[in-house]
């Protein structure tokens, strides 16, 4: 199983490697990708010549490659690929295609807007265009992985009541069975203040639970099913309990083209508040079955 790690030589890159190693387990192979800006002759510097920049950059990239390989924990194999590309997101997608990666793994960004985590520009483009699942972590999520010794413990699939939930559960189940992990299927129900606690609300929770159970049964899986409700998505998420080493899986927005990612508004909110790493799965994604 190969994972493509979008690496930058900073804390985020280290987080990405930690996440990829945990996702893949000891049998994984990590392709650690460093993207460099493409050197177009039309941005010629004035006055001329590259001022020795490309050789200095090459040395620096070599040094970073060594650091990156040292970050890989015992178990997975790894190599570093550095490539000049015109757009980092497009470059990562192309490299993932070439290497046959199961997922693109990114580090979190240590920048918080009003206390929330926001994805960086490369992550944003990937989350709206990638044909591969994209795994992302925040510093807090990586801390939870570390407490679990860098190993996964449970996989939680987030499903809605709309079509498409099946593919997400399937993707999560495949990942879970690959590493023999527990599976949990979670549905979020947001209620407004007026209906909270009413019979109508209880009914909606029941219907949601039944829909999730139907999917699990249809796929022949055994999974814990949880419905979290609250007065808004953030509230509902706050109701959930998490174990160290857990990861969450969500699907793409219905706006996504087939087999492409498009991070929906709910997933975007989840990305900001989840205490665990998040994997976003493209629409109509067909995960490979476990290979020995």
């Amino acid at each position: 199983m190969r994972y493509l790690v979008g690496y930058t030589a900073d804390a985020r890159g280290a987080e990405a490697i930690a996440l990829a190693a945990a996702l893949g387990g000891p049998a994984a192979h990590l392709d650690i990708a460093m993207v460099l800006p493409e050197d177009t002759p039309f941005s010629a510097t004035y006055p001329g010549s590259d001022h020795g920049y490309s050789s200095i950059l090459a040395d620096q990239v070599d040094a970073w490659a060594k650091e990156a390989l040292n970050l890989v924990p015992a178990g997975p194999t790894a190599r570093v690929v550095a490539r000049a590309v015109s757009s980092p997101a497009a470059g990562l997608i192309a490299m993932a295609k070439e290497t046959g990666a199961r997922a693109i793994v990114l580090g979190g960004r240590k920048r918080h807007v009003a206390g929330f985590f926001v994805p960086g520009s490369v992550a944003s483009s990937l989350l709206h265009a990638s044909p591969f699942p994209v795994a992302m972590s925040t510093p807090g999520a990586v801390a939870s992985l570390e407490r679990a010794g860098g190993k996964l413990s449970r996989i939680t699939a987030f499903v809605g009541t709309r079509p498409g939930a099946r593919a997400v559960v399937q993707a999560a189940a495949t990942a879970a069975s690959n590493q023999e992990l527990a599976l949990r299927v979670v549905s979020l129900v947001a209620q407004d203040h007026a209906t909270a606690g009413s019979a109508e609300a209880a009914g909606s929770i029941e219907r949601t639970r039944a829909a999730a159970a139907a999917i699990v049964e249809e796929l022949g899986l055994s999974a814990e099913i949880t419905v979290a409700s609250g007065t808004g998505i953030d509230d509902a998420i706050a109701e959930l309990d998490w174990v160290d080493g857990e990861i969450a899986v969500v699907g793409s927005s219905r706006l996504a083209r087939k087999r492409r990612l498009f991070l929906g508004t709910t997933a975007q909110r989840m990305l900001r508040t989840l205490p665990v790493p998040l994997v976003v799965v493209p629409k109509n994604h067909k995960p490979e079955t476990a290979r020995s």
Partner: protein
Amino acid sequence: MSRDTATESRATPAAESGLGDKGLSKGTVGVLGAVVIGVSCIAPAYTLTAALGPTVAEVGTQLPAIFLAGFLPMLLVALGYRELNSAMPDSGTSFTWATRAFGPWIGWMGGWGLIAATIIVLSNLAAVAVDFFYLLIAQLTGNDAIAELTRNLWVNIPTTLVFIAAACWISYRGMQTTKAFQYALVAFQLVVLTWFAVAAFSHVNNGTAFDPTPIALDWFNPMAVHSFGAFAAGVSLSIFIFWGWDVTLTMNEETTNPAKVPGRAATLTILIIMGIYMVISLAVISYAGIGETGLGAGNPENQESIFAVLAGPIMGPFAILMSLAILSSSAASLQSTLVSPARTILAMGYYKALPERFGKVSPRFMSPSTATITAGSAAAVFYVVTRLLSENALWDTITALGLMICFYYGVTALACVWYFRREAFDTVRGFFFKFLAPLVGGVILLVMFASTARDSMDPDYGSGSNIAGLGMVFILGMGVLVLGVAVMLYMRIRQPGFFKGETLKRML
């Protein structure tokens, strides 16, 4: 087991990075593309508006002659540059070339000269961009008072700092100019400059010119310049207007045919540029004369930026196109010029000629981080100091810039001669390109440098600003060089490794 793969790839990441052949740009640029790159590096709309006035102040009607003469040392030095670039393609900068040829001390000062020259031109570019920014708004709104805002230091200095900061940010993010943008920018500049010249000549024909001056043959005769000092000053100014042309010559693997494209593109570029410079200088002098009053090109009031003054009377309502052309070309140059000092500072940090933190590369944007911010801040400080000290900051910075270019081009040219001293006499071609051309070019530039430096001590030199009877241009130019010597001595004490040849070896 797992570590084997890791170790294996440890040795070869660069092989996969494609850095050896500079990414994906191989073999993509034809003659037209290379000409566009060359013209955009020269940025004729900007260089003319900045240098035409100060040059007329030195040499009067012999402006075309000086432009022609100024090209000669540029050509000779660029030929040497091309040889150095193909001999040491990985290190292409004055700093490394001069260090390898002459050792650390001269190499250090060569690098400093390049940094200083680019920092000075950055501050000038930003200032020109700001002038035309307000002029453009004034023309758009029809409110002339807005154009005057640029004379208010409380408006001018903060706006200029914003422009420099924006260029800094773009460079730091590693954003690059696209092909379409460059083509559009260059075509627009050439069209507007031609328009300006045609309009000026038709005013002369119709008898509506400010001071119609009939073109005379001796405008093209450099011998007619009244003194050697004026000649030297004129040449050191006109070096500036060809600065950037060498880019076309040093292009190599990015062209579709390295054997033919660079030479043809360089020739075509210089023909276009020379054509534009000749037509514009003839048009300006025919229309405005070299008088020191009103619209005259010799009027000290007009030295800062000749097109800001003349475009209105000559082009009428279409003067707004000139403002747009100069604003866009100077803003684009501001960004592309910032890359040069940043990379040279990075190289000096990397080879430990400056503190190591200057050698830092941003892991996200793969651009020189500390070095870019340092270069931008230095340009900002230089601008504020000059603006506050000088009555006519743009004029003085352009003159000081000419000095600095002569210095580091001269040093680099002689580095070429010295570097190739053993092999230069093996072939006739080698003798000419590796020895004669750079030697003559380098000596001419250093003579211009010495002559202009001596003359600039005169308090009346340039705009006439002075401190304690010493000319402002001399203080700016020499101050920057003396500061360089001081920093160099400090680095020698703090971090002697570079000066002992531990990081960058002199090739004996």
